[in-house]
Structure formats: C-alpha cells, structure tokens
C-alpha cells in the first residue's frame, strides 16, 4: 500500500515542474504571436501572413485539399488551443489541438510547416502531455510523472540540435559554401555576419564550428555536470542567430524550451 502523499511532497513535486510550466506558457504564447496579428504593429516580414490568422483561406486558386470553411475552423481551433494551453486549462487536449490543427492548416500549403511552426506545434503537444500544467495554470493537474516529463522535453530539445548538426556534416556546408550563399542572398546579414563571413577560411571555420556545436550541445545539456555552461552557450548561440539571421521565431522557441533544463 502506497504511503499517502503529504501536501508538502505534492507541493515540492509541483514546484519542480516550474521550468516546464514556464516553457508551456512561453511556447503557447509564441504560437499565438506567430499565428495571430498580435505582432503586426512591428511590421516583421516573416509575420506578414499571420492575418487574420496564419493559414486563413483566401479567395482564388489554392493548393489546399480541405474546404475553406474547414481550414478557417482549424485556424480558430488552433488559436483556442494555444490560449487554453497558455492559461493551463485542459492542457493535454489543448496541446494536442494546437499540434493537430496547426499541422493540418500548414499541410494546406505546398511548403508544409516551416521549422518554427513544427517546433512550436510539437512542443505544444509534448508540454500538454507532460506535467507542464502542474504549475502556473488556472486548472493545475496533479504531477503524474515528473521525471519522465522533464526527460521528454529535454530529449526533444537535444534531438533538434542533434538532427540539425547531423545534416551539416556535408562537404558543401563544412567548406563554407552554404554560408556564403546564405550571406550573399541576404538571409544572413549585419555587421557581425559581414565580419565573420568575410573570407573563405572564416566561413569554413564558422561552418565547422556550428556543425560541431549542434552535434555536442544536446548531450552537454542533458549531462548534469556540463548543463550550466551548455545552457549559457546555447542561449548565446540563439541570440547571435537572432542578430545575424532573424530566423523567424525559431530561436525564441528554442530558448523557451531551454528553460526545461533548469533545475
């Protein structure tokens, strides 16, 4: 017979989920910022399609395979799901709703879900199905499996870095050609980028450095001994990318998820 859980033990368990709760609020807020016109006053280029809601059906020719009314309803459901997840109301179905409706809307475009949306939607589902709603929630759920909840989100973040790093072990990335193309096209820009990518050798050096960083940062984050320094490095990495490449809201999404590594 299991010993009854005292209030202090339950509170302690719940508080240990605080990082997950913060990540849940941050990720769902990013979903709302990316898929609604909330940030339209900033006139950010990559948010031009978020009005009235991202993926809202428009008149004229379309690649969509769902009727416009259904697509519109999915856009509304995605928004409701994200708001519910952020507030901590029925977080598990809310997270699944965000992921399912978001990915279905994205599938109506020939280009599918870009990396930012894939990250946010998958994270929303995982956070909803974890103990992220045990804290900072209007309707908190009792902690169900705190250890595996934290592990799930940490492994997810580590896997994103691992796959990204794996793809870069190619000659055309490692010799700096891809960085040169991205720089010439304006995808990477600014004084810092101009300086760092000025010569073929600096481009190759940076390319190898990024590939190596993404390949090792996941295990370094997971391993307790190196976690603190790895967190600092990871935040610095994403902030640098924000300055030089403005990669949609991807960097902010990753930084929101890095909170899961805080003890």
């Amino acid at each position: 017979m299991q010993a009854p859980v005292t209030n202090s033990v339950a509170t302690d368990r719940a508080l240990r989920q605080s990082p997950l709760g913060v990540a849940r609020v941050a990720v769902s807020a990013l979903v709302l910022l990316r898929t609604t016109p909330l940030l339209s006053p900033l006139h950010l280029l990559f948010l031009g399609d978020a009005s009235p809601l991202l993926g809202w059906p428009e008149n004229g020719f379309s690649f969509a395979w769902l009727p416009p009314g259904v697509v519109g309803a999915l856009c509304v459901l995605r928004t409701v799901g994200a708001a519910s997840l952020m507030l901590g109301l029925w977080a598990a179905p809310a997270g699944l709703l965000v992921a399912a409706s978001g990915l279905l809307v994205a599938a109506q475009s020939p280009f599918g879900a870009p990396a930012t949306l894939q990250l946010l939607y998958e994270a929303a589902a995982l956070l909803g199905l974890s103990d992220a709603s045990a804290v900072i929630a209007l309707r908190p759920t009792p902690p169900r499996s705190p250890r595996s909840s934290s592990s799930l989100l940490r492994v997810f973040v580590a896997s994103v870095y691992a796959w990204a790093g794996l793809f870069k072990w190619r000659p055309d990335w490692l010799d700096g050609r891809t960085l040169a193309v991205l720089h010439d096209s304006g995808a990477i820009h600014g004084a810092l980028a101009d300086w760092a990518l000025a010569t073929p050798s600096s481009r190759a050096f940076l390319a190898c450095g990024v590939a190596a960083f993404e390949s090792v940062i996941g295990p370094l984050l997971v391993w307790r001994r190196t976690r603190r320094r790895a967190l600092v490095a990871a935040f610095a990495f994403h902030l640098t990318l924000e300055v030089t490449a403005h990669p949609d809201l991807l960097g902010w999404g990753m930084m929101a998820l890095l909170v899961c590594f805080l003890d």
Partner: protein
Amino acid sequence: MTGAGSGLGWAFLHRVLAVLVCVVIPAQSWLDGGGARAWTMYARSASYRVRIVTVDEDGQTRWMSPSELAAHSTGDLASALGGAETFRVGPQGFALRARVATLAEFVCASSHADHVTLSLSIRERAGAPIQETTTSRACRRP
C-alpha cells in the same frame, strides 16, 4: 497502487512520444529525401528558378514572369514565386517540383492562356548541376 500505475502509464507514454517525435518523424523525413521535418533548416544551399511560357488562343507565345504569377497568389506561394525568374536560394523548389502539375493549372487559371509550359530548375546545393522538371498542359475552358 492506482497512483503508481497511472505514473507508470504516463512514463510509458512519454517514452513512446520521445521515440516518435525525436527519432521516427525526423528519420522518416530524412529517408524520403526531403528532410523538411528533420530540422534541416537554414543549412541548405539549394536554389530554384521558374520559367513559364504561355500560348494564347491566337497562337502568340509569350514568357510569363513568376512574379506576375505571384501577384495572383498569396502567402508563402506568392513569396516563393516572387523573383523566381532567376535562381533564388531556398528549399521551396522541392515542394514546387512535387506539385508542378498543380502549379501549371494555376498558371492556366491566372493567364487565360490556351497552353502553358512550366519549367522548374533546381540546384540541390551550391555548385551542383541543374535539375530540370518541365510540364506542359492545355488549359481547359468552360
């Protein structure tokens, strides 16, 4: 016991989700050649170009600019077509190639031509040879 059993159930679910989201989905995307769901973002030097030739009912042939086609579209399709008269850096060419027939249909609808030929050129990475995909279709009129 109920609590412990429930906890074990959730732990099992988390393991399944970890395998699915962290391994299966990215691996499947990598194996199907696209890599779109394998976190390959901003690591490609692929580029693409679109060329469109239309023939009107009088038999006149003319080039149609992808930017002109972009003006008839919205969202990320408009963004992908704009400026695609010359090679544009981005992976969008792969998605367009997969839907080139539908894209030709779109050209028909936008140009009111009798016949269209659409050519999509893709370089998979910087310095790679150009891969051409061409489709032609007669435009049906009601």
